[in-house]
């Protein structure tokens, strides 16, 4: 795909969705009213593990406005467990705990009342008798034999323990002159959208359809709701035109939807659950990876890494949905942007008595990038080499693409060195180093941080069969349908919900590009799930590629039909028909043409003028399979995971007040290559937002637990989301290496910034504190802890220096 100039793609167009948001007319799940709706509040378990001995509902049922109190046993009898990704039938997951509660905050009963306030009043009156059980919180402890087992029937806390060996790892280690190992920890944080999960379900017994309005981002949401509720798939209608107030992966909401879906059917009125922030933080099941990485690398005297062993242990919490797959997706870029020749990767997922983990932006790639970048920095330090230079030596070269990595994925395209060079030039790296040294001379700690990493994009479900061979899924789709009506108006469809990614703008731009008409003329609508074609929703940084691709192909089909109709009507050979901005003309005699409206009229109203065997109307759909997809893994676990790979390089300057331990980012640069950019405003927003997320994960955010298994960061007072003060100005440098796999050369960008910012910030902190002999190997890096480390190091050096 060459970098040609486009008419609309890559131009600085406004995002059409913005119009409704700036006037407060977004349609969020909690905005939707249905007559007769009742409200749910949850009764939660206060213990990290407990047997539920008895639930006394009497007082609650007698409270004003209360309609029902649902317990886990009743719900379990009427529903199927929620789908898990791995083959772990003895680890069932249900919306409400059945007999045993497994984390503090887990839902043990649901109260339905006329208002949310009345439901909360009644929830306080539900008396639950618990027998506290032993519990385990730490991931390594949960993995070790002898610790309390979260799911007794499963026999251990291990959901996944699989080792892959790609290439001749032992030989590469033996033959390398140097090796080093390190452990790094990625703390438990998540995306924590400002809007909590909200769902309204209404069962229509006459049509036998469950209407679901939910703030959701989840593949297979409609059919999983149906499965759980033992309904046919066509009895669940999910509304795709609900605006989602941020998700970044976590808004799966399957337990919430099954809960209210059941209640609506049982009780005969619409039922709504809007998580309050406490329910959301403790039991929304939206926590992120909590991971220990043990990394060992084998390298030469130039700092070139030949082989890597990585053990990743993830504490997924008390139940497993898709979260163990967050150890699988990073296999798609397991060597990062580097030419590491062989890899041994051990993926371990364990249960513990913590809140359940869900898919977080980039699905495990950011923690993995952090581990890889820590390793390469240690290699540089080991060899006494500049960290930038060592990265340059290890980066895959532009002339090596397409590049096959040991785990079986081929990186489509890239020019990593060019991006690094651009950032270095924009930042004036030498001046940055001089600035760092000047700040050090003033008594501050100062460090330069950097990180190079990939954004696997386009998504695919290949990690599912890789980690669960019983699940032979190789299809990953999206779709678009275009209809031109009798008046000539163009309407296109999106078959999923969006959370601010600008998909309507994307579709309009792509179709406008193909049809050479103003994108603002393209109406974009979202049919409900019953009227939709298959979509896997905006996960895995896929929509520019997949929705853009589907829209493109549907538009091409439309264009082909217009050409055919015109050629037939003009009585010319098909090769002479040329398309131009909605009209079709004879390229040898351009005055012979049919206009857009003439062609539309023929299609809709003049059957006698259509070519033979042509469907009337102008309706075209395209259901697109992910490029490069469609194959199962090999026996030794190699497979093409995602099709496209964007690249980013972060470079920042940070100071740390040595007395306070307080970090401050002074300059921040990022180079970003996501191929062809379809809408620059959207892509920039993604990168900036991702960096802000990354700053949060690196410096502020943690779902901390105390020794009693209680989540200490229960509200936004203790879980610290970065405000505008905490995000510095960022300069973005662009580069474009188009993907050969996509219609315009676009790659994904929805995870950009978040993929590399935590690694880059860790790099800056370590550069700043290295002179004191401190190494920081876990995230988040909290300022008080950093302050304590600095003070301890200074005390130690003072003790050493003072004579006698």
């Amino acid at each position, binding site marked *: 795909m060459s970098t040609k100039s486009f008419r609309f793609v890559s131009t600085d167009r406004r995002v059409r969705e913005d119009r409704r948001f*700036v006037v*407060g007319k977004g349609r969020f799940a909690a905005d939707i009213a249905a007559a007769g709706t009742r409200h749910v509040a949850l009764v939660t378990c206060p213990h990290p593990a407990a047997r539920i001995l008895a639930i006394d509902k009497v007082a609650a049922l007698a409270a004003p406005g209360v309609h029902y109190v649902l317990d886990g046993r009743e719900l379990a009898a009427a529903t199927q467990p929620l789908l898990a990704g791995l083959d772990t039938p003895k680890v069932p997951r249900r919306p409400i705990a059945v007999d045993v509660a497994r984390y503090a905050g887990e839902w043990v009963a649901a109260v339905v009342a006329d208002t949310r306030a009345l439901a909360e009043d009644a929830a306080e009156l539900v008396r639950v008798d618990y027998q506290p059980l032993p519990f385990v919180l730490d991931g390594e402890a949960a993995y070790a034999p002898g610790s309390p087992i979260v799911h007794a029937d499963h026999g251990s806390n291990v959901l996944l323990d699989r080792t892959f060996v790609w290439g001749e790892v032992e030989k590469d280690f033996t033959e390398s002159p140097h090796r080093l190992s390190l452990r790094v920890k990625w703390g438990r944080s998540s995306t924590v959208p400002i809007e909590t999960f909200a769902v309204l379900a209404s069962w229509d017994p006459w049509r036998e359809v469950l209407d679901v309005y939910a703030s959701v981002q989840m593949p297979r949401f409609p059919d999983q709701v149906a499965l759980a509720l033992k309904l046919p798939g066509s009895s669940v209608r999910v509304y795709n035109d609900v605006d989602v107030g941020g998700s970044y992966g976590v808004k799966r909401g399957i337990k919430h939807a099954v809960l209210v879906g059941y209640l609506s059917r049982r009780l005969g009125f619409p039922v709504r659950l809007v998580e309050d922030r406490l329910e959301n933080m403790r039991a929304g099941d939206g926590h992120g990876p909590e991971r220990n990485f043990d990394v060992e690398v084998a390298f030469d005297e130039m700092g070139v890494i030949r082989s890597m062993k990585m053990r990743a242990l993830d504490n997924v919490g008390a139940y497993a949905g898709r979260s163990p797959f967050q150890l699988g997706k990073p296999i798609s870029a397991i060597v990062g942007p580097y030419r590491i020749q062989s890899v041994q990767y051990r993926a371990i997922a364990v249960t513990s008595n913590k809140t359940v983990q869900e898919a977080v932006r980039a699905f495990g790639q950011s923690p993995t990038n952090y581990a890889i970048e820590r390793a390469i920095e240690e290699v540089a330090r080991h060899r006494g080499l500049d960290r930038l230079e060592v990265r340059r030596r290890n980066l895959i070269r532009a002339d090596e693409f397409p590049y096959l990595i040991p785990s079986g994925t081929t990186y489509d395209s890239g020019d990593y060195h060019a991006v690094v060079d651009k950032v270095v030039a924009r930042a004036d790296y030498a001046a940055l180093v001089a600035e760092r040294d000047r700040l050090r001379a003033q008594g501050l700690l100062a460090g330069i941080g950097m990180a190079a990493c990939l954004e696997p994009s386009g998504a695919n479900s290949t990690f599912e069969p890789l980690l669960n061979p019983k699940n032979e899924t190789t299809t990953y789709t999206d779709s678009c349908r275009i209809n031109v009506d009798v008046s000539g108006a163009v309407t296109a469809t999106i078959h999923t919900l969006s959370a601010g990614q*600008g998909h309507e703008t994307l579709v309009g731009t792509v179709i406008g590009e193909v049809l050479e008409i103003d994108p603002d003329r393209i109406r974009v609508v979202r049919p409900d799930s019953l009227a939709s074609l298959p979509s896997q929703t905006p996960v895995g940084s896929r929509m520019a590629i997949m929705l853009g691709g589907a829209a493109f192909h549907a538009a091409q089909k439309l264009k082909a039909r217009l050409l055919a109709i015109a050629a037939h009507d003009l009585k010319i050979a098909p090769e002479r028909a040329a398309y131009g901005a909605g009209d079709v003309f004879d390229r040898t005699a351009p005055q012979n043409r049919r206009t857009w409206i003439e062609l539309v009229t023929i299609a809709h109203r003049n059957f006698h003028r259509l070519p033979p065997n042509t469907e009337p109307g102008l309706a075209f759909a395209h259901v697109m399979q992910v490029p490069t997809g469609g194959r199962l893994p090999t026996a030794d676990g190699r497979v093409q995971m995602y099709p496209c790979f964007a690249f980013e390089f972060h470079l920042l300057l940070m100071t740390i007040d040595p007395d306070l331990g307080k970090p401050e980012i002074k300059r921040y640069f990022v180079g970003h290559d996501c191929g062809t950019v379809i809408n620059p405003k959207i892509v920039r927003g993604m990168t900036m*937002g991702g960096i802000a997320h990354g700053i949060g994960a690196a410096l502020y955010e943690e779902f901390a637990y105390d020794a009693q298994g209680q989540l200490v960061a229960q509200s*936004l007072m203790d879980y610290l989301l970065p*405000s*505008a003060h905490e995000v510095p100005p960022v300069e973005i440098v662009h580069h474009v290496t188009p993907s050969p796999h996509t219609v315009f050369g676009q790659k994904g960008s929805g995870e950009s910034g978040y993929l590399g910012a935590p690694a880059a910030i860790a790099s800056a902190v370590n550069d700043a504190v290295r002179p004191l002999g401190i190494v920081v190997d876990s995230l988040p890096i909290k300022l008080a802890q950093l302050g304590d480390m600095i003070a301890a190091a200074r005390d130690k050096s003072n003790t050493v220096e003072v004579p006698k």
Partner: protein
Amino acid sequence: MRVELIVNGEMRTVEVEPRMSLLDCLRERLLLTGAHAGCEHGVCGACTVLIDGAPARSCLMFAVQADGYAITTIEGVTPGPGELSPIQDAFCETHGMQCGYCTPAMILTAHALLADNPEPTRADIVDAISANICRCTGYAQIVEAIALAAERMRGLNQPARKP
């Protein structure tokens, strides 16, 4: 209890429990759903409205406390059907949002800032919006929107400062 609220220049009478927050009252009784609930404990700012022109967290007020003040919601700064104020338009120009959930709060905060300070520095803008958490944008395009709005409004033929 019966409360008379002055919302967007109009007197509205509502019947509420004392414990109903101003936020819930605006959303559920008056169907002004532009103000959003993000935390209900006064941290995220998504519920921001203007009380006598100053940003305030509507989740931290009970409706019964709110009579007698001029309450402005996002619906009240929208000029008319299909129209955008200069600030709203600036937010569209810079794409100062993604999911839109914090956006009404940001825009109202911008209104208050620019009424008080028509030539804000970047630091002034950052300070003003620091009470509103955005999880999507990383703030850059929001700051640019407010700076752009300030620049455009200075060019408009209207008083620079409210009395």
